[in-house]
């Protein structure tokens, strides 16, 4: 087993798709939200939409950390990086994300010291190698990523490194799901639960969705067969009138999560009273900040943060798309003013954002059809 190829076997894919069609029948309409941006990406990448029957509607959720980051936070981070002798370190995903004065990459072209790191540990390494500079790590991500940032901060402290800090933008997934369920125009039948976030938080935090909201949720892997199997599991529950938390991704997700990772997060972070999500607005207790014990490593406590707020243009309908009220192409700006090259709204920013995923794959498909018709 290599844990990848097996879950892409074409014959099994078509067999599972048959089972989905059988279970879905024709009478009922099913609305399922995949919470995680990685799932959104996989749905388009593997063309899963094309093999699902029409009465299964997939709604793309808020689980893309790059997309939900308010532009003001990028501006804040870049403003701090303008101070003398500061190195701005971030994941590659962040590099093309526009702030009001351009993306980190564009700032680099104008002379800012911007470094792409693969891991928070690499940012700490930069601090070790550049003792005369201050390295600011621009941290983003859900609970999948936050423990690694926490451990890196703990390491910085135990090594006595003083020229390193983290601009913390870590967010937590459960409050975002709650915000979506609380919104009055939301109608959802079930959830495809995030896979890798759940390796850390486990499956228990989803139980209220099943018990209180009466919605089934299946924590799912990212290969085509994982996702199709999860849809089978959701259909079985829905058809039987059940609402349970199930774990399709047992090979990777332990029911209780990862204790060591949760412990590192609890050691370094505390919940912010509220945090702004691009496209969703302010959500209470939905993000992490560095606690007082580790204040020395908190960019927001070490530097003057301007606290810039940027509102998206009125015509941007990201909120409606996020809640599944509109499909990406139904937004008035889609494909015209707003494209992956010039994103206006949050969901066009990363390839995991639903508008960008839709644009890249559906557009390419349309272009291919036109070509083959012309040929």
């Amino acid at each position, binding site marked *: 087993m290599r844990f990848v190829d097996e879950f892409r076997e074409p014959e099994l894919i078509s067999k599972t798709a048959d089972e989905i069609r059988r279970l879905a029948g024709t009478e009922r309409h099913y609305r399922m939200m995949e919470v995680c941006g990685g799932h959104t990406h996989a749905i388009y990448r593997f063309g899963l939409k094309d093999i699902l029957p029409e009465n299964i509607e997939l709604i793309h959720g808020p689980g893309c950390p790059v997309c939900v980051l308010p532009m003001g936070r990028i501006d804040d981070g870049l403003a701090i990086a303008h101070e003398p002798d500061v190195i701005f370190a971030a994941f590659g995903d962040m590099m093309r994300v526009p702030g009001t004065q351009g993306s980190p990459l564009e700032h680099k072209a104008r002379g800012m010291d911007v470094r792409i790191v693969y891991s928070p540990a690499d940012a700490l390494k930069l601090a070790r190698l550049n003792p005369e500079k201050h390295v600011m790590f621009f941290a983003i991500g859900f609970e999948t990523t936050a423990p690694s940032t926490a451990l890196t901060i703990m390491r910085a402290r135990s090594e006595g490194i003083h020229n390193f800090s983290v601009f913390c933008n870590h967010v937590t997934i459960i409050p975002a799901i709650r915000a979506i369920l609380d919104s009055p125009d939301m109608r959802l039948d079930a959830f495809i639960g995030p896979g890798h976030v759940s390796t850390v938080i486990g499956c228990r935090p989803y139980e209220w969705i099943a018990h209180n909201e009466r919605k089934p949720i299946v924590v799912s892997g990212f290969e085509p067969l994982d996702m199709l199997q999860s849809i089978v599991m959701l259909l079985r529950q829905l058809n039987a009138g059940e609402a349970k938390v199930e774990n*399709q991704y047992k090979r990777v997700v332990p029911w209780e999560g990862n204790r060591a990772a949760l412990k590192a997060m609890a050691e370094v972070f505390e919940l912010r009273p509220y945090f702004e999500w691009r496209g969703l607005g302010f959500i209470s207790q939905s993000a992490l900040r560095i606690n007082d014990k580790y204040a020395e490593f908190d960019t927001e406590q070490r530097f003057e943060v301007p606290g810039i707020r940027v509102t998206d243009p009125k015509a941007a309908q990201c909120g409606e798309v996020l809640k599944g009220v509109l499909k990406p192409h139904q937004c008035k700006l889609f494909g015209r003013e707003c494209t992956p090259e010039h994103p206006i709204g949050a969901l066009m920013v990363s390839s995991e954002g639903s508008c960008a995923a839709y644009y890249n794959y559906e557009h390419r498909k349309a272009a291919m059809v036109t070509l083959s018709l012309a040929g």
Partner: protein
Amino acid sequence: MCLAIPGQIIEVKEIGGLRSARVQFGGIVRQVCLDFVPEAAAGDYVMVHVGFAITKVDRLEAERTFRALQEMEGLEDELASSSSESH
């Protein structure tokens, strides 16, 4: 962004008191931190995200999931064991 990829541990080492491993992904080998998976050893598969192993891949569960897919009819009992009620 939250994607983690499976790789196989080739060798475990202590570096500065921390458990670290060389992990093979296809043709590429990378140094990975093992602090979150203290039980992982050489030969194990781990899921790696931003340079940190966040969980061990359970080979038995992987095979079970795959078998369930192959025997779609048998799926029912298989799934019963993964529901919240049984935990």
